[in-house]
Protein backbone atom coordinates (compact mmCIF):
# COMPACT_ATOMS: atom_id res chain seq x y z
CA UNK A 1 0.00 0.00 0.00
CA UNK A 2 2.60 2.48 -1.09
CA UNK A 3 -0.05 4.91 -2.32
CA UNK A 4 -1.08 5.63 1.29
CA UNK A 5 0.69 7.53 4.02
CA UNK A 6 2.05 5.09 6.56
CA UNK A 7 -0.20 6.18 9.39
CA UNK A 8 -3.22 5.09 7.39
CA UNK A 9 -2.15 1.51 6.80
CA UNK A 10 -4.00 0.18 9.85
CA UNK A 11 -7.14 2.12 8.83
CA UNK A 12 -6.98 0.66 5.32
CA UNK A 13 -6.89 -2.81 6.80
CA UNK A 14 -9.80 -2.23 9.20
CA UNK A 15 -13.47 -3.13 8.60
CA UNK A 16 -15.84 -1.36 6.20
CA UNK A 17 -17.78 0.89 8.65
CA UNK A 18 -14.55 2.23 10.18
CA UNK A 19 -13.12 3.04 6.77
CA UNK A 20 -16.30 4.71 5.59
CA UNK A 21 -16.51 6.80 8.74
CA UNK A 22 -12.89 7.79 8.33
CA UNK A 23 -13.44 8.85 4.73
CA UNK A 24 -16.52 10.87 5.55
CA UNK A 25 -14.96 12.80 8.43
CA UNK A 26 -13.53 16.23 7.65
CA UNK A 27 -9.84 16.28 6.92
CA UNK A 28 -7.53 19.15 6.27
CA UNK A 29 -5.51 18.92 3.07
CA UNK A 30 -2.73 21.36 2.54
CA UNK A 31 -2.68 23.38 -0.68
CA UNK A 32 -0.70 26.49 -1.57
CA UNK A 33 -3.55 29.03 -1.72
CA UNK A 34 -4.79 27.98 1.71
CA UNK A 35 -1.26 27.94 3.09
CA UNK A 36 -0.75 31.51 1.92
CA UNK A 37 -3.94 32.63 3.65
CA UNK A 38 -3.01 30.77 6.83
CA UNK A 39 0.36 32.54 6.78
CA UNK A 40 -1.37 35.89 6.39
CA UNK A 41 -3.70 35.07 9.29
CA UNK A 42 -0.67 34.18 11.42
CA UNK A 43 0.88 37.53 10.59
CA UNK A 44 -2.31 39.31 11.53
CA UNK A 45 -2.58 37.45 14.82
CA UNK A 46 0.93 38.50 15.75
CA UNK A 47 0.26 42.11 14.74
CA UNK A 48 1.02 44.59 17.54
CA UNK A 49 -1.90 46.60 18.85
CA UNK A 50 -2.21 49.85 16.94
CA UNK A 51 -4.95 52.43 16.55
CA UNK A 52 -6.02 51.14 13.18
CA UNK A 53 -5.75 47.39 13.16
CA UNK A 54 -5.51 45.62 9.79
CA UNK A 55 -8.53 43.50 8.91
CA UNK A 56 -9.12 40.81 6.35
CA UNK A 57 -12.03 39.81 4.14
CA UNK A 58 -11.73 36.25 2.93
CA UNK A 59 -13.77 35.73 -0.18
CA UNK A 60 -14.38 32.49 -1.97
CA UNK A 61 -17.12 30.71 -3.79
CA UNK A 62 -19.51 28.58 -1.88
CA UNK A 63 -18.06 25.22 -0.90
CA UNK A 64 -14.52 26.34 -1.66
CA UNK A 65 -13.05 25.57 1.77
CA UNK A 66 -13.32 28.91 3.59
CA UNK A 67 -14.91 27.57 6.72
CA UNK A 68 -12.61 24.57 6.88
CA UNK A 69 -9.62 26.86 6.44
CA UNK A 70 -10.78 29.08 9.29
CA UNK A 71 -11.45 26.04 11.45
CA UNK A 72 -7.94 24.85 10.74
CA UNK A 73 -6.60 28.22 11.86
CA UNK A 74 -8.67 28.05 15.06
CA UNK A 75 -7.33 24.60 15.78
CA UNK A 76 -3.84 26.03 15.62
CA UNK A 77 -4.80 28.66 18.19
CA UNK A 78 -6.95 26.92 20.73
CA UNK A 79 -7.82 28.40 24.12
CA UNK A 80 -5.45 27.78 26.99
CA UNK A 81 -5.12 28.52 30.68
CA UNK A 82 -2.19 30.66 31.82
CA UNK A 83 0.22 28.93 34.13
CA UNK A 84 0.40 31.23 37.13
CA UNK A 85 -3.09 32.45 37.94
CA UNK A 86 -4.82 30.02 35.57
CA UNK A 87 -6.67 32.62 33.60
CA UNK A 88 -8.46 31.53 30.45
CA UNK A 89 -7.06 32.94 27.20
CA UNK A 90 -8.77 32.64 23.81
CA UNK A 91 -6.56 34.24 21.20
CA UNK A 92 -8.99 33.52 18.35
CA UNK A 93 -12.77 33.60 18.60
CA UNK A 94 -14.98 32.47 15.72
CA UNK A 95 -18.60 33.36 15.32
CA UNK A 96 -21.06 33.01 12.49
CA UNK A 97 -22.72 36.22 11.36
CA UNK A 98 -26.38 36.38 12.43
CA UNK A 99 -28.95 35.64 9.70
CA UNK A 100 -29.59 39.36 9.35
CA UNK A 101 -27.56 42.42 10.32
CA UNK A 102 -28.83 42.61 13.89
CA UNK A 103 -26.27 43.76 16.46
CA UNK A 104 -28.07 42.29 19.43
CA UNK A 105 -28.27 38.88 17.82
CA UNK A 106 -24.60 39.17 16.95
CA UNK A 107 -23.66 39.94 20.55
CA UNK A 108 -25.81 37.08 21.79
CA UNK A 109 -24.15 34.66 19.40
CA UNK A 110 -20.76 35.93 20.47
CA UNK A 111 -21.52 35.62 24.20
CA UNK A 112 -22.86 32.11 23.60
CA UNK A 113 -19.67 31.28 21.78
CA UNK A 114 -17.64 32.65 24.71
CA UNK A 115 -19.72 30.60 27.22
CA UNK A 116 -20.61 33.78 29.06
CA UNK A 117 -23.85 34.26 30.98
CA UNK A 118 -25.94 37.18 29.72
CA UNK A 119 -29.41 38.59 29.98
CA UNK A 120 -31.49 37.99 26.85
CA UNK A 121 -33.42 41.21 27.29
CA UNK A 122 -30.42 43.38 28.13
CA UNK A 123 -30.10 46.75 26.50
CA UNK A 124 -27.82 46.93 23.51
CA UNK A 125 -25.24 49.19 25.15
CA UNK A 126 -24.95 46.94 28.20
CA UNK A 127 -24.56 43.89 26.03
CA UNK A 128 -21.87 45.67 24.06
CA UNK A 129 -20.02 46.58 27.24
CA UNK A 130 -20.23 42.97 28.39
CA UNK A 131 -18.89 41.65 25.07
CA UNK A 132 -16.02 44.11 25.15
CA UNK A 133 -15.24 43.27 28.75
CA UNK A 134 -15.23 39.50 28.14
CA UNK A 135 -13.13 39.73 24.99
CA UNK A 136 -10.63 41.92 26.80
CA UNK A 137 -10.56 39.53 29.72
CA UNK A 138 -9.92 36.58 27.40
CA UNK A 139 -7.07 38.47 25.75
CA UNK A 140 -8.65 37.86 22.36
CA UNK A 141 -6.56 39.14 19.48
CA UNK A 142 -8.63 38.03 16.50
CA UNK A 143 -12.34 37.79 15.86
CA UNK A 144 -13.38 35.69 12.88
CA UNK A 145 -16.87 36.25 11.49
CA UNK A 146 -17.98 33.64 8.99
CA UNK A 147 -20.88 33.93 6.53
CA UNK A 148 -20.57 37.70 6.45
CA UNK A 149 -22.77 37.79 3.32
CA UNK A 150 -25.70 37.33 5.73
CA UNK A 151 -25.40 41.10 6.13
CA UNK A 152 -27.17 41.45 2.82
CA UNK A 153 -30.38 40.17 4.34
CA UNK A 154 -31.10 43.59 5.76
CA UNK A 155 -31.69 47.17 4.72
CA UNK A 156 -28.72 49.27 3.71
CA UNK A 157 -29.06 51.23 6.96
CA UNK A 158 -28.91 48.12 9.13
CA UNK A 159 -25.96 46.90 7.05
CA UNK A 160 -24.11 50.12 7.80
CA UNK A 161 -25.01 49.97 11.48
CA UNK A 162 -23.67 46.45 11.68
CA UNK A 163 -20.46 47.43 9.95
CA UNK A 164 -20.11 50.32 12.39
CA UNK A 165 -20.38 47.81 15.22
CA UNK A 166 -17.50 45.85 13.73
CA UNK A 167 -15.51 49.04 13.27
CA UNK A 168 -16.15 50.00 16.88
CA UNK A 169 -14.98 46.61 18.06
CA UNK A 170 -11.79 46.75 16.03
CA UNK A 171 -11.05 50.26 17.25
CA UNK A 172 -11.84 49.88 20.90
CA UNK A 173 -10.51 46.40 21.50
CA UNK A 174 -7.68 46.74 19.00
CA UNK A 175 -8.32 43.29 17.64
CA UNK A 176 -8.05 41.96 14.12
CA UNK A 177 -11.39 41.22 12.50
CA UNK A 178 -11.44 38.57 9.81
CA UNK A 179 -14.67 38.32 7.86
CA UNK A 180 -15.32 35.47 5.47
CA UNK A 181 -18.04 34.93 2.96
CA UNK A 182 -19.06 34.29 -0.61
CA UNK A 183 -18.56 36.73 -3.47
CA UNK A 184 -21.62 38.67 -2.34
CA UNK A 185 -19.78 39.45 0.89
CA UNK A 186 -17.82 42.03 -1.06
CA UNK A 187 -21.03 43.88 -1.80
CA UNK A 188 -22.02 43.67 1.85
CA UNK A 189 -18.73 45.13 2.97
CA UNK A 190 -18.83 47.89 0.41
CA UNK A 191 -21.96 49.34 2.06
CA UNK A 192 -19.51 51.51 3.96
CA UNK A 193 -16.60 52.86 1.87
CA UNK A 194 -14.50 53.24 5.00
CA UNK A 195 -14.97 49.60 5.84
CA UNK A 196 -14.24 48.52 2.30
CA UNK A 197 -10.98 50.38 2.68
CA UNK A 198 -10.13 48.76 5.99
CA UNK A 199 -10.74 45.17 4.95
CA UNK A 200 -8.03 43.81 2.71
CA UNK A 201 -9.59 41.23 0.44
CA UNK A 202 -8.11 37.78 -0.02
CA UNK A 203 -9.55 35.35 -2.51
CA UNK A 204 -9.73 31.63 -2.28
CA UNK A 205 -9.85 31.05 -6.03
CA UNK A 206 -11.66 28.37 -7.91
CA UNK A 207 -9.38 25.51 -8.99
CA UNK A 208 -8.08 25.22 -12.51
CA UNK A 209 -6.75 22.18 -14.26
CA UNK A 210 -3.14 22.82 -13.40
CA UNK A 211 -0.20 21.12 -11.78
CA UNK A 212 -1.50 22.36 -8.40
CA UNK A 213 -4.84 20.63 -8.96
CA UNK A 214 -3.07 17.36 -9.73
CA UNK A 215 -1.02 17.72 -6.57
CA UNK A 216 -4.25 18.18 -4.62
CA UNK A 217 -5.65 14.96 -6.10
CA UNK A 218 -2.46 13.16 -5.16
CA UNK A 219 -2.83 14.44 -1.59
CA UNK A 220 -6.42 13.20 -1.50
CA UNK A 221 -5.36 9.79 -2.68
CA UNK A 222 -2.73 9.45 -0.01
CA UNK A 223 -5.40 10.04 2.64
CA UNK A 224 -8.07 7.64 1.33
CA UNK A 225 -7.86 4.26 3.05
CA UNK A 226 -8.37 2.21 -0.15
CA UNK A 227 -6.20 -0.83 -0.44
CA UNK A 228 -5.21 -0.28 -4.07
CA UNK A 229 -3.88 2.81 -5.82
CA UNK A 230 -6.50 4.67 -7.89
CA UNK A 231 -4.03 6.98 -9.68
CA UNK A 232 -6.37 9.96 -9.53
CA UNK A 233 -3.74 12.12 -11.21
CA UNK A 234 -3.99 10.23 -14.47
CA UNK A 235 -5.49 12.60 -17.04
CA UNK A 236 -8.71 10.69 -17.68
CA UNK A 237 -9.63 10.46 -14.01
CA UNK A 238 -8.37 13.92 -13.12
CA UNK A 239 -10.32 15.56 -15.94
CA UNK A 240 -13.42 13.70 -15.03
CA UNK A 241 -13.25 14.71 -11.37
CA UNK A 242 -12.56 18.29 -12.44
CA UNK A 243 -15.59 18.33 -14.68
CA UNK A 244 -17.82 16.85 -11.98
CA UNK A 245 -16.65 19.22 -9.25
CA UNK A 246 -16.59 22.37 -11.35
CA UNK A 247 -13.42 23.48 -9.62
CA UNK A 248 -14.34 24.04 -5.96
CA UNK A 249 -12.44 22.10 -3.32
CA UNK A 250 -15.61 21.17 -1.42
CA UNK A 251 -17.00 19.53 -4.54
CA UNK A 252 -13.69 17.85 -5.42
CA UNK A 253 -13.67 16.39 -1.93
CA UNK A 254 -17.34 15.38 -2.19
CA UNK A 255 -16.80 13.58 -5.53
CA UNK A 256 -13.76 11.69 -4.28
CA UNK A 257 -15.36 10.84 -0.93
CA UNK A 258 -18.56 9.56 -2.53
CA UNK A 259 -16.57 7.53 -5.04
CA UNK A 260 -14.35 6.04 -2.34
CA UNK A 261 -17.33 5.07 -0.19
CA UNK A 262 -19.07 3.51 -3.20
CA UNK A 263 -15.88 1.61 -4.04
CA UNK A 264 -15.58 0.18 -0.54
CA UNK A 265 -19.26 -0.79 -0.45
CA UNK A 266 -18.96 -2.47 -3.84
CA UNK A 267 -15.93 -4.42 -2.70
CA UNK A 268 -13.64 -2.55 -5.08
CA UNK A 269 -10.48 -1.10 -3.67
CA UNK A 270 -9.88 1.73 -6.12
CA UNK A 271 -11.64 4.58 -7.85
CA UNK A 272 -11.89 4.36 -11.63
CA UNK A 273 -13.86 6.01 -14.41
CA UNK A 274 -16.56 3.40 -14.33
CA UNK A 275 -17.12 3.98 -10.64
CA UNK A 276 -17.32 7.74 -11.17
CA UNK A 277 -20.10 7.10 -13.69
CA UNK A 278 -21.94 4.96 -11.22
CA UNK A 279 -22.03 7.37 -8.30
CA UNK A 280 -25.15 9.37 -7.72
CA UNK A 281 -23.76 12.85 -8.18
CA UNK A 282 -25.46 15.98 -9.46
CA UNK A 283 -23.27 18.75 -10.81
CA UNK A 284 -23.20 21.87 -8.62
CA UNK A 285 -24.45 24.01 -11.52
CA UNK A 286 -27.31 21.58 -12.06
CA UNK A 287 -28.19 21.82 -8.38
CA UNK A 288 -28.29 25.58 -8.57
CA UNK A 289 -30.38 25.51 -11.71
CA UNK A 290 -32.77 23.16 -10.02
CA UNK A 291 -33.24 25.70 -7.25
CA UNK A 292 -33.99 28.38 -9.83
CA UNK A 293 -30.69 30.17 -9.31
CA UNK A 294 -28.69 30.85 -12.44
CA UNK A 295 -25.16 29.54 -12.34
Amino acid sequence: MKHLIEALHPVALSDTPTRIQFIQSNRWIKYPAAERILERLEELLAHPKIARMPNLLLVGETNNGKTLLLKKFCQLHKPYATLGDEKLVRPVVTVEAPPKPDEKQFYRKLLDQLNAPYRQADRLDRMERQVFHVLQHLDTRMLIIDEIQNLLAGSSTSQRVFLNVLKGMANELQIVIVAAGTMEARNAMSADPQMANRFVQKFLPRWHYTEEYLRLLASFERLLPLREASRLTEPALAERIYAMSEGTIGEISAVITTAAVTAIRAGKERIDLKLLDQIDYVLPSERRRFQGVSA
Partner: protein
Amino acid sequence: MTPILSPDALLERRILPCTFHPSEDELLSSWLVRLAQAHRVKVQLFSHYLWPQIVVWKRDIDKLAPPHMLNTLVVRTLTDPHRIAQTMLAPAVERLTGTQLLHVKRGPTSWLMPVGIVHRTRQGNGLVYCPGCLQRDGANPYYRTSWRLAFYVVCPTCGVYLREECPACGAPVNFFRLDMGHQNAAEQLLSTCYKCAFDLSQAPMQPVPAQELSRYYTLYRVSREGWKEAVPYPHQYFRVLRQIVRVLSCPFGEALRLQVDVRLRMGQPVTWPSGGGAFEQLPIARRIYLLEQAMWLLEDWPARFIRVMHDNQIKSYTIRRDMAEEMPFWFSSVLVEHFFSARNRSWSQFEH
Protein backbone atom coordinates in the same frame (compact mmCIF):
# COMPACT_ATOMS: atom_id res chain seq x y z
CA MET B 1 -1.64 21.92 41.68
CA THR B 2 -4.26 21.66 38.96
CA PRO B 3 -3.14 19.56 36.01
CA ILE B 4 -2.79 21.55 32.82
CA LEU B 5 -5.94 21.10 30.79
CA SER B 6 -5.87 20.29 27.12
CA PRO B 7 -7.41 22.96 24.84
CA ASP B 8 -10.11 20.52 23.72
CA ALA B 9 -11.06 19.85 27.34
CA LEU B 10 -11.28 23.61 27.90
CA LEU B 11 -13.71 23.98 25.02
CA GLU B 12 -15.70 20.91 25.92
CA ARG B 13 -16.14 21.99 29.52
CA ARG B 14 -17.41 25.41 28.39
CA ILE B 15 -15.19 27.18 30.91
CA LEU B 16 -16.60 30.53 32.02
CA PRO B 17 -14.59 33.28 30.32
CA CYS B 18 -13.83 35.45 33.34
CA THR B 19 -13.18 32.77 35.91
CA PHE B 20 -10.66 33.02 38.77
CA HIS B 21 -9.84 31.02 41.88
CA PRO B 22 -11.43 31.82 45.24
CA SER B 23 -9.17 33.86 47.49
CA GLU B 24 -7.57 32.47 50.62
CA ASP B 25 -10.29 31.12 52.96
CA GLU B 26 -13.08 32.61 50.81
CA LEU B 27 -16.73 31.64 51.27
CA LEU B 28 -18.53 30.00 48.36
CA SER B 29 -21.22 32.70 48.26
CA SER B 30 -18.60 35.44 48.22
CA TRP B 31 -16.76 33.75 45.34
CA LEU B 32 -19.98 33.33 43.36
CA VAL B 33 -20.90 36.98 43.76
CA ARG B 34 -17.43 38.04 42.64
CA LEU B 35 -17.61 35.67 39.66
CA ALA B 36 -20.96 37.18 38.65
CA GLN B 37 -19.45 40.65 38.91
CA ALA B 38 -16.48 39.60 36.81
CA HIS B 39 -18.89 38.55 34.07
CA ARG B 40 -20.78 41.84 34.35
CA VAL B 41 -24.07 40.16 35.18
CA LYS B 42 -26.27 40.26 38.23
CA VAL B 43 -25.89 37.61 40.89
CA GLN B 44 -29.36 36.13 40.40
CA LEU B 45 -28.86 35.87 36.65
CA PHE B 46 -25.45 34.27 37.07
CA SER B 47 -26.75 31.65 39.48
CA HIS B 48 -29.80 30.98 37.31
CA TYR B 49 -27.50 30.55 34.30
CA LEU B 50 -25.39 27.94 36.08
CA TRP B 51 -28.20 26.24 38.05
CA PRO B 52 -31.55 26.84 36.38
CA GLN B 53 -33.28 24.17 38.45
CA ILE B 54 -32.61 25.57 41.91
CA VAL B 55 -32.99 28.86 43.74
CA VAL B 56 -29.45 29.30 44.97
CA TRP B 57 -29.95 32.18 47.40
CA LYS B 58 -32.84 30.66 49.29
CA ARG B 59 -30.52 28.22 51.03
CA ASP B 60 -27.32 28.34 53.02
CA ILE B 61 -24.96 27.25 50.25
CA ASP B 62 -21.94 28.09 52.39
CA LYS B 63 -22.86 25.47 54.95
CA LEU B 64 -23.10 22.64 52.44
CA ALA B 65 -24.01 23.17 48.81
CA PRO B 66 -25.82 20.45 46.86
CA PRO B 67 -23.29 18.20 45.07
CA HIS B 68 -24.51 19.11 41.58
CA MET B 69 -23.84 22.77 42.32
CA LEU B 70 -20.24 21.98 43.11
CA ASN B 71 -19.96 19.71 40.07
CA THR B 72 -21.01 22.57 37.82
CA LEU B 73 -18.32 24.75 39.33
CA VAL B 74 -15.73 22.00 38.94
CA VAL B 75 -16.60 21.69 35.24
CA ARG B 76 -17.00 25.34 34.36
CA THR B 77 -14.13 26.96 36.25
CA LEU B 78 -10.43 26.23 36.31
CA THR B 79 -10.40 25.68 40.07
CA ASP B 80 -9.75 22.16 41.32
CA PRO B 81 -12.50 20.32 43.25
CA HIS B 82 -10.54 20.22 46.48
CA ARG B 83 -10.17 24.00 46.53
CA ILE B 84 -13.88 24.45 45.75
CA ALA B 85 -14.85 22.12 48.62
CA GLN B 86 -12.84 24.35 50.95
CA THR B 87 -15.13 27.29 50.25
CA MET B 88 -17.84 25.52 52.23
CA LEU B 89 -18.14 25.38 55.99
CA ALA B 90 -18.89 21.69 56.22
CA PRO B 91 -15.22 20.61 56.62
CA ALA B 92 -14.58 23.21 59.35
CA VAL B 93 -17.76 22.34 61.22
CA GLU B 94 -17.01 18.64 60.96
CA ARG B 95 -13.62 19.30 62.50
CA LEU B 96 -15.20 21.16 65.40
CA THR B 97 -18.03 18.75 66.11
CA GLY B 98 -16.47 15.43 65.13
CA THR B 99 -19.61 14.49 63.20
CA GLN B 100 -20.27 14.51 59.51
CA LEU B 101 -22.47 17.26 58.20
CA LEU B 102 -25.03 15.73 55.89
CA HIS B 103 -26.71 17.51 53.08
CA VAL B 104 -30.12 16.53 54.38
CA LYS B 105 -29.49 17.99 57.81
CA ARG B 106 -31.43 21.15 58.47
CA GLY B 107 -31.67 23.26 61.58
CA PRO B 108 -28.96 24.43 63.96
CA THR B 109 -25.42 23.21 63.67
CA SER B 110 -22.92 23.59 66.48
CA TRP B 111 -20.50 26.48 65.99
CA LEU B 112 -22.10 27.55 62.72
CA MET B 113 -24.02 30.80 62.95
CA PRO B 114 -27.38 30.73 61.18
CA VAL B 115 -27.84 33.55 58.68
CA GLY B 116 -31.60 33.78 59.19
CA ILE B 117 -32.81 33.17 55.67
CA VAL B 118 -36.22 34.68 55.03
CA HIS B 119 -37.08 34.18 51.37
CA ARG B 120 -34.00 35.52 49.62
CA THR B 121 -32.70 37.80 52.34
CA ARG B 122 -30.65 37.09 55.38
CA GLN B 123 -31.97 38.73 58.46
CA GLY B 124 -29.67 37.25 61.09
CA ASN B 125 -26.18 38.44 61.91
CA GLY B 126 -24.74 35.09 60.92
CA LEU B 127 -21.84 36.58 59.01
CA VAL B 128 -19.39 38.86 60.75
CA TYR B 129 -16.54 40.82 59.19
CA CYS B 130 -13.25 42.46 59.98
CA PRO B 131 -13.05 46.02 58.64
CA GLY B 132 -9.24 45.76 58.62
CA CYS B 133 -9.21 42.65 56.40
CA LEU B 134 -11.78 44.17 54.01
CA GLN B 135 -9.59 47.25 53.82
CA ARG B 136 -6.48 45.20 53.13
CA ASP B 137 -8.25 43.34 50.29
CA GLY B 138 -8.22 46.62 48.35
CA ALA B 139 -10.17 46.41 45.10
CA ASN B 140 -11.41 42.87 45.73
CA PRO B 141 -12.81 42.58 49.24
CA TYR B 142 -14.24 39.17 50.05
CA TYR B 143 -15.77 37.26 52.96
CA ARG B 144 -13.92 34.50 54.83
CA THR B 145 -15.27 31.11 55.88
CA SER B 146 -14.15 31.72 59.46
CA TRP B 147 -16.52 34.69 59.69
CA ARG B 148 -19.45 32.31 59.88
CA LEU B 149 -18.08 30.40 62.88
CA ALA B 150 -19.49 31.41 66.25
CA PHE B 151 -16.16 31.42 68.11
CA TYR B 152 -14.51 33.72 65.56
CA VAL B 153 -15.11 36.98 67.37
CA VAL B 154 -11.73 38.62 66.87
CA CYS B 155 -9.49 38.91 63.84
CA PRO B 156 -6.15 37.26 64.63
CA THR B 157 -4.46 39.22 61.83
CA CYS B 158 -5.70 42.70 62.65
CA GLY B 159 -6.08 42.17 66.42
CA VAL B 160 -9.53 43.78 66.47
CA TYR B 161 -13.00 42.61 67.38
CA LEU B 162 -15.11 41.52 64.42
CA ARG B 163 -18.32 43.38 63.60
CA GLU B 164 -21.68 41.86 62.84
CA GLU B 165 -23.66 44.71 61.36
CA CYS B 166 -23.37 47.92 59.42
CA PRO B 167 -22.32 50.68 61.85
CA ALA B 168 -24.43 53.18 59.94
CA CYS B 169 -27.77 51.43 59.57
CA GLY B 170 -27.49 48.25 61.64
CA ALA B 171 -28.30 45.95 58.70
CA PRO B 172 -26.72 42.47 58.57
CA VAL B 173 -24.29 41.59 55.78
CA ASN B 174 -26.19 40.65 52.60
CA PHE B 175 -23.53 41.14 49.94
CA PHE B 176 -25.37 38.98 47.39
CA ARG B 177 -28.16 41.56 47.28
CA LEU B 178 -25.86 44.44 46.39
CA ASP B 179 -26.90 44.61 42.75
CA MET B 180 -30.64 44.80 43.47
CA GLY B 181 -32.03 47.99 42.07
CA HIS B 182 -28.73 48.96 40.49
CA GLN B 183 -28.14 49.18 36.78
CA ASN B 184 -24.54 48.25 36.82
CA ALA B 185 -23.90 44.96 38.51
CA ALA B 186 -20.14 45.10 38.85
CA GLU B 187 -19.56 48.49 40.40
CA GLN B 188 -20.35 47.69 44.02
CA LEU B 189 -17.57 46.25 46.15
CA LEU B 190 -18.55 43.39 48.41
CA SER B 191 -17.63 45.51 51.40
CA THR B 192 -20.57 47.83 50.71
CA CYS B 193 -23.63 47.66 52.98
CA TYR B 194 -26.52 46.47 50.81
CA LYS B 195 -28.97 48.73 52.55
CA CYS B 196 -27.26 52.08 53.06
CA ALA B 197 -24.14 51.69 50.86
CA PHE B 198 -21.82 52.36 53.80
CA ASP B 199 -18.32 51.05 53.18
CA LEU B 200 -17.96 48.33 55.83
CA SER B 201 -14.18 48.43 55.50
CA GLN B 202 -14.37 51.89 57.06
CA ALA B 203 -16.29 50.67 60.11
CA PRO B 204 -14.68 51.60 63.46
CA MET B 205 -12.26 49.00 64.77
CA GLN B 206 -11.95 48.10 68.44
CA PRO B 207 -8.59 46.58 69.36
CA VAL B 208 -8.51 43.42 71.47
CA PRO B 209 -6.48 43.63 74.74
CA ALA B 210 -3.22 41.71 74.43
CA GLN B 211 -4.07 39.11 77.05
CA GLU B 212 -7.41 38.30 75.46
CA LEU B 213 -5.84 38.19 72.04
CA SER B 214 -3.37 35.53 73.11
CA ARG B 215 -6.32 33.46 74.40
CA TYR B 216 -7.96 33.72 71.00
CA TYR B 217 -4.72 32.77 69.27
CA THR B 218 -4.69 29.60 71.35
CA LEU B 219 -8.36 28.93 70.60
CA TYR B 220 -7.87 29.34 66.85
CA ARG B 221 -4.81 27.11 66.99
CA VAL B 222 -6.88 24.44 68.77
CA SER B 223 -9.57 24.75 66.09
CA ARG B 224 -6.98 23.85 63.48
CA GLU B 225 -4.72 21.31 65.14
CA GLY B 226 -6.25 20.16 68.41
CA TRP B 227 -5.47 21.23 71.96
CA LYS B 228 -2.49 19.19 73.08
CA GLU B 229 -0.99 15.76 72.65
CA ALA B 230 -3.58 14.09 74.87
CA VAL B 231 -6.44 15.96 73.14
CA PRO B 232 -5.34 15.85 69.50
CA TYR B 233 -8.65 16.54 67.74
CA PRO B 234 -10.34 19.96 67.77
CA HIS B 235 -13.78 18.49 68.50
CA GLN B 236 -12.53 16.97 71.78
CA TYR B 237 -11.94 20.51 73.06
CA PHE B 238 -14.76 22.31 71.31
CA ARG B 239 -17.50 20.02 72.62
CA VAL B 240 -16.52 20.97 76.14
CA LEU B 241 -16.11 24.62 75.27
CA ARG B 242 -19.61 24.73 73.83
CA GLN B 243 -21.04 23.04 76.93
CA ILE B 244 -19.32 25.54 79.21
CA VAL B 245 -20.52 28.59 77.28
CA ARG B 246 -23.99 27.06 77.42
CA VAL B 247 -23.79 26.64 81.18
CA LEU B 248 -22.41 30.17 81.61
CA SER B 249 -25.17 31.66 79.50
CA CYS B 250 -27.82 30.35 81.89
CA PRO B 251 -29.10 33.45 83.76
CA PHE B 252 -30.03 31.85 87.07
CA GLY B 253 -29.00 29.48 89.84
CA GLU B 254 -25.58 27.93 90.13
CA ALA B 255 -24.66 28.96 86.61
CA LEU B 256 -25.25 32.63 87.34
CA ARG B 257 -23.17 32.34 90.50
CA LEU B 258 -20.39 30.72 88.55
CA GLN B 259 -20.51 33.36 85.85
CA VAL B 260 -20.30 36.30 88.24
CA ASP B 261 -17.44 34.69 90.14
CA VAL B 262 -15.45 33.95 86.99
CA ARG B 263 -15.89 37.50 85.82
CA LEU B 264 -14.66 38.88 89.12
CA ARG B 265 -11.69 36.54 89.19
CA MET B 266 -10.80 37.64 85.65
CA GLY B 267 -10.74 41.18 86.98
CA GLN B 268 -13.45 42.33 84.60
CA PRO B 269 -16.68 44.11 85.37
CA VAL B 270 -19.80 42.03 85.59
CA THR B 271 -22.05 43.16 82.81
CA TRP B 272 -24.88 41.36 81.18
CA PRO B 273 -24.93 41.89 77.40
CA SER B 274 -28.40 41.20 76.10
CA GLY B 275 -29.41 38.12 74.14
CA GLY B 276 -30.35 34.58 74.94
CA GLY B 277 -30.68 31.31 73.10
CA ALA B 278 -28.17 29.04 71.44
CA PHE B 279 -24.60 30.30 71.47
CA GLU B 280 -24.50 30.54 67.66
CA GLN B 281 -27.49 32.87 67.66
CA LEU B 282 -26.23 35.28 70.30
CA PRO B 283 -25.11 38.80 69.44
CA ILE B 284 -21.35 39.09 69.09
CA ALA B 285 -20.93 41.11 72.31
CA ARG B 286 -22.54 38.31 74.29
CA ARG B 287 -20.50 35.64 72.53
CA ILE B 288 -17.31 37.50 73.40
CA TYR B 289 -18.46 37.81 77.02
CA LEU B 290 -19.14 34.09 77.33
CA LEU B 291 -16.17 32.84 75.31
CA GLU B 292 -13.65 34.76 77.34
CA GLN B 293 -14.96 33.24 80.56
CA ALA B 294 -15.06 29.74 79.16
CA MET B 295 -11.52 29.97 77.76
CA TRP B 296 -10.29 31.32 81.08
CA LEU B 297 -11.94 28.43 82.95
CA LEU B 298 -10.27 25.84 80.76
CA GLU B 299 -6.83 27.37 81.16
CA ASP B 300 -4.37 25.78 83.59
CA TRP B 301 -6.45 22.63 83.28
CA PRO B 302 -7.73 21.15 85.57
CA ALA B 303 -6.51 23.09 88.63
CA ARG B 304 -8.34 26.36 87.94
CA PHE B 305 -11.55 24.62 86.96
CA ILE B 306 -11.59 22.47 90.10
CA ARG B 307 -10.85 25.43 92.36
CA VAL B 308 -13.57 27.66 90.90
CA MET B 309 -16.15 24.88 90.92
CA HIS B 310 -15.38 23.98 94.52
CA ASP B 311 -15.38 27.58 95.69
CA ASN B 312 -18.80 28.11 94.16
CA GLN B 313 -20.11 24.70 95.21
CA ILE B 314 -21.09 23.80 91.66
CA LYS B 315 -22.36 20.24 91.19
CA SER B 316 -21.27 18.07 88.30
CA TYR B 317 -24.89 17.94 87.18
CA THR B 318 -24.86 21.67 86.46
CA ILE B 319 -21.85 21.23 84.25
CA ARG B 320 -22.91 18.17 82.32
CA ARG B 321 -26.63 18.95 82.16
CA ASP B 322 -28.18 18.53 78.67
CA MET B 323 -24.82 17.95 77.06
CA ALA B 324 -25.91 16.84 73.64
CA GLU B 325 -22.68 15.29 72.46
CA GLU B 326 -20.49 12.63 73.92
CA MET B 327 -18.28 13.94 76.72
CA PRO B 328 -14.54 13.64 75.99
CA PHE B 329 -12.50 11.60 78.45
CA TRP B 330 -10.20 14.44 79.53
CA PHE B 331 -13.24 16.29 80.79
CA SER B 332 -15.40 13.48 82.13
CA SER B 333 -12.51 12.04 84.15
CA VAL B 334 -12.09 15.34 86.04
CA LEU B 335 -15.83 15.58 86.67
CA VAL B 336 -15.97 12.03 88.01
CA GLU B 337 -12.93 12.44 90.15
CA HIS B 338 -13.73 15.79 91.72
CA PHE B 339 -17.41 16.61 91.58
CA PHE B 340 -19.34 13.43 91.44
CA SER B 341 -21.45 12.67 94.54
CA ALA B 342 -21.75 8.89 94.42
CA ARG B 343 -25.11 8.47 96.09
CA ASN B 344 -27.81 7.07 93.81
CA ARG B 345 -25.91 7.85 90.64
CA SER B 346 -24.99 5.56 87.82
CA TRP B 347 -21.37 5.48 86.72
CA SER B 348 -22.18 4.15 83.33
CA GLN B 349 -22.84 7.59 81.81
CA PHE B 350 -19.18 8.53 82.28
CA GLU B 351 -17.75 5.35 80.90
CA HIS B 352 -17.24 6.30 77.31
